[in-house]
């Protein structure tokens, strides 16, 4: 027998689930089953009762499952058997769940009719099951997005509860989990639904979840929304300005002080789902160098795409006139902003960028500027060669639906819980850029204490090979790090600590670690310089 083959395939692993876990899982699935049956217009009446029952079963199932998993155990890291379970080790169950999730997202995005959304007439199917709740909150019938919002919130709250229990010994984990549960329930779900109640014939605000910041919320500055914001008077203008300040002012300040974690693992809804429902899959992220390379190219390409797309869309309606800002002025201010950021990075942070990052930055910058120049010279009528609408709809389809939903969540059990956040999210790319070059945040390595065990790397959901830094005594300063703190939690030797401190000396590669003869350390570390 060889250990190089996964040991779980020996069939000797302990029974993956105990009786209570099985029963509670069945209970939760019964809730899902009620919802699934309602798709076929089974006619559960009264709907309010059946909906309560379905949601209640899911909630009770998760709570019971949590109890069955952790109640009898001491507080501490409980990753026992993660690689023995089919669901968490890419076994049959993982693929079944992956296919179901993926299917759900495809139906949700592309075939909402199957769920009971009718273009004319009342809802049927599972969407009608949610009508009573939607009426109660927003005073209108449910949509597929309302159904999704309820399920999404339920998942974050339920599995958040599970996470809280699993990490009950760890205040950092608990606090940030309370935080994502709070933001999801309050800002992403309840407030926008209640806001819909304010809308009537002469007053209308777009559906706005203020923690969903552009460019994650890639449609935030589209014409219909901007028009609605403006027509809604002061409150609408305030929200619009908040949306712009979020990305241009609030985000850089908070990221400078705390790293991108303030958003990615404390506030963001995508992060919230990943950290709660996705937690059992965090170890599945790919840690190889090649995956890191792919990540860098992909996530920054998406960022460029969303910048280009948004610029084109905003420009095209501003150009139509009727706004205080003209299309040309807007385009020039975008060009200036990009030039300032590019110039700053190249002038002051050049040595911190890897070679491929420099080339890519220069390449992207030159192309964007050239296109803007071409446009002003009158050589092309379209800003970025394509129609703004084409860019918008292809972004919405490829990135908004396929990448963030179908792949991002659907593939949790196969590629881990942060596929979207790592490879696709343009917001993460911006925050990561700030975190890498302009932040006080780092993960500190504790002297020479690392034993290279690999728990940190294994459980890093972003696929960072944390150990590679820790065993060199080097702090971890990576743009992708979302600061979930799990590496520090699973470390058996107390080696890692998330810290905000003076940006100087943040990156500290060492050849010889603390613990050896001081002269030797001096010598070797000097030789490097």
């Amino acid at each position: 027998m060889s250990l190089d083959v996964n040991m779980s395939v020996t069939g000797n692993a302990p029974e993956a689930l105990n009786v209570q876990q099985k029963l509670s899982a069945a209970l939760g699935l019964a809730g899902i089953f009620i919802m699934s049956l309602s798709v076929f217009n089974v006619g559960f009446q009264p709907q309010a009762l059946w909906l309560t029952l379905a949601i209640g079963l899911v909630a009770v199932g998760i709570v019971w499952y949590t109890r069955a998993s952790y109640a009898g155990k001491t507080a501490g890291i409980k990753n026992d058997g993660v690689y023995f379970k089919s669901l968490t080790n890419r076994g049959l169950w993982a693929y079944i769940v992956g296919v179901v999730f993926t299917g759900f997202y495809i139906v949700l995005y592309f075939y909402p009719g199957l769920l009971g959304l009718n273009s004319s007439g009342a809802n049927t199917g599972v969407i009608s099951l949610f009508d009573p709740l939607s009426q109660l909150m927003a005073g209108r019938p449910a949509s597929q997005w309302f159904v999704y919002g309820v399920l999404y919130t339920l998942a974050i709250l339920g599995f958040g509860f599970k996470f809280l229990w699993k990490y009950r010994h760890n205040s950092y984990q608990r606090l940030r989990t309370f935080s994502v549960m709070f933001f999801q329930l309050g800002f992403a779900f309840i407030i926008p639904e209640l806001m819909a109640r304010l809308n009537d014939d002469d007053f209308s605000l777009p559906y706005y979840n203020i923690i969903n910041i552009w460019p994650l919320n890639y449609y935030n500055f589209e014409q219909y929304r901007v028009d609605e914001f403006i027509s809604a008077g002061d409150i609408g203008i305030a929200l619009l300005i908040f949306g712009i300040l979020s990305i241009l002012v609030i985000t850089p300040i908070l990221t400078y002080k705390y790293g991108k974690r303030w958003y990615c693992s404390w506030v963001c809804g995508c992060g919230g789902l990943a950290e709660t429902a996705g937690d059992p899959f965090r170890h599945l992220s790919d840690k190889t160098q090649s995956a890191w390379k792919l990540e860098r190219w992909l996530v920054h390409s998406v960022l460029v795409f969303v910048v280009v797309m948004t610029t084109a869309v905003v420009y095209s309606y501003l150009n139509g006139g009727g706004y205080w800002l003209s299309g040309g002025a807007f385009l020039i201010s975008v060009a200036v902003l990009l030039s300032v950021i590019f110039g700053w990075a190249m002038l002051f942070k050049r040595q911190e960028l890897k070679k491929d990052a420099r080339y890519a930055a220069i390449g992207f910058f030159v192309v964007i500027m050239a296109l803007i120049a071409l446009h002003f010279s009158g050589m092309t009528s379209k800003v970025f060669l394509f129609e703004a609408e084409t860019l918008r709809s292809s972004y919405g389809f490829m990135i908004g639906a396929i990448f963030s939903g179908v792949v991002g969540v659907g593939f949790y059990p196969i590629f881990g819980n942060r596929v979207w956040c790592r490879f696709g999210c343009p917001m993460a790319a911006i925050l990561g850029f700030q975190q890498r070059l302009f932040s006080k945040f780092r993960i500190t390595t504790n002297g020479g204490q690392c034993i290279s065990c690999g728990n940190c790397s294994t459980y890093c959901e972003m696929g960072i090979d944390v150990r590679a830094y820790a065993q060199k005594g080097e702090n971890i300063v990576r743009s992708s790090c979302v600061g979930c703190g799990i590496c520090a939690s699973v470390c058996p030797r107390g080696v890692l600590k998330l810290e905000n401190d003076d940006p100087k000396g943040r990156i500290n590669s060492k050849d010889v670690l603390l613990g050896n003869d001081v002269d030797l350390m001096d010598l070797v570390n000097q030789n490097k310089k």
Partner: protein
Amino acid sequence: MKQEHIVIIGNGISGVTLARHIRKLSDKRITLISSESDYFFSRTALMYVYMGHMKWNHLKPYEDTFWEKNRLELKQAHVTHVDTEHKQLKLDSGEDFSYDKLVIACGSRYNKFGWPGQDAEAVIGLVSKQDLEQLEVYAPNNNVCKRAVIVGGGLIGVELAEMLSTRNIPVTFLVREEHFWNTVIPDEEAQVLERHIREHGIDLRLGNSLEEIITDEHRRAKAVKVKETGEIIDCDLVGLTPGVSPNIDFLKSSKIELNRGVLVNRMLETSEPDVYAIGDCAEQREPIGNRPPVEAVWYTGRMMGETLAQTLCGNPMEYNPGHWFNSAKFFDIEYQTYGWVFPTPKEGHDDFYWEAEDGKKCIHIHFEKEPRIFKGINTFGIRMRHEVFDYWLTEEATVEEVIKNLKKANFDPEFFEAYEKQIQKEFEKEFNTIEL
């Protein structure tokens, strides 16, 4: 000039650190010989594979392409004889393999103290990859293994107990001493750990040692006999974890001078020219400070590798480790130590012990009575900053300075409960030497 060929026996942390550093400093040809595993892995993490936290691949700190990229040659073989006169190794394949410089970094194996039945089937240690494979055979679950007995209370014993308990295998843990690991830690800490071990359902027997391992007709262990009580404990697995010793049998036919380990001087040179030894298998002729002559610790192996690389690359350097430090984890309780804390304070030393109300966190400080120089700390359940303690030890800070500034040394995650105030108050109550 011919390229010098450095051959390293063993691809554990010592040998691999050495190889990496030689490569950084030079262009020498480097070969690592091992019969244990294809690639370097973290021995300290073996437990996590059995527990299902990780797969074997996760134990490897470097991707498999690393070795070729850095021109580190890996040879799968077992060395059976070292001929220092002709600078040749005899391999189990019959091949002769020559070297210009030889480094022995072959590590440890687990101790057996001549117990009857110690070589029977289903008697295992927990040192090598092969030990882990054996464990998977004899204790895959609690149907095959209805009870396991672990002999020897130390770091590996408690790891093995934790591993088996994750598969719901009942464990009896025989510890010869009156308190757990009290050859190294004071009784106060030992008692914290004893409670914690028992909390996990482990049948911990203090003051109990092994008389013999009773085997069945297939020479497979079926029970153990306890020396002190005469009790026979039925079991399907016996784990021997009474420490480790250098794995040097294959050197007995060579001219290299051996004692418990391969004898080396401070330059890490053995008795034979161009032969060095580092890591667990090396034994210092003159112990360094309070350190034992054989140090079977991950960190010291790494440090010897760092040092010898300098010597072999033209910058001769003595092995001169800095302040002692170590760490471990006992089930859920993390342990770190900086400087020296002995089971009982040395002559002229005093100690200060603090334990949290939950009985799962404690610190123990030893210091000189006059002047009040801080000598070392054991910390359980509270993470401390290596750099800060290293600095205090170098600067010979007083115990009062340390207690007053303890917050600076805290390395717990953000938002964790802080205990410095409690600790300071208790210190003040006991010694009345700091102003709060």
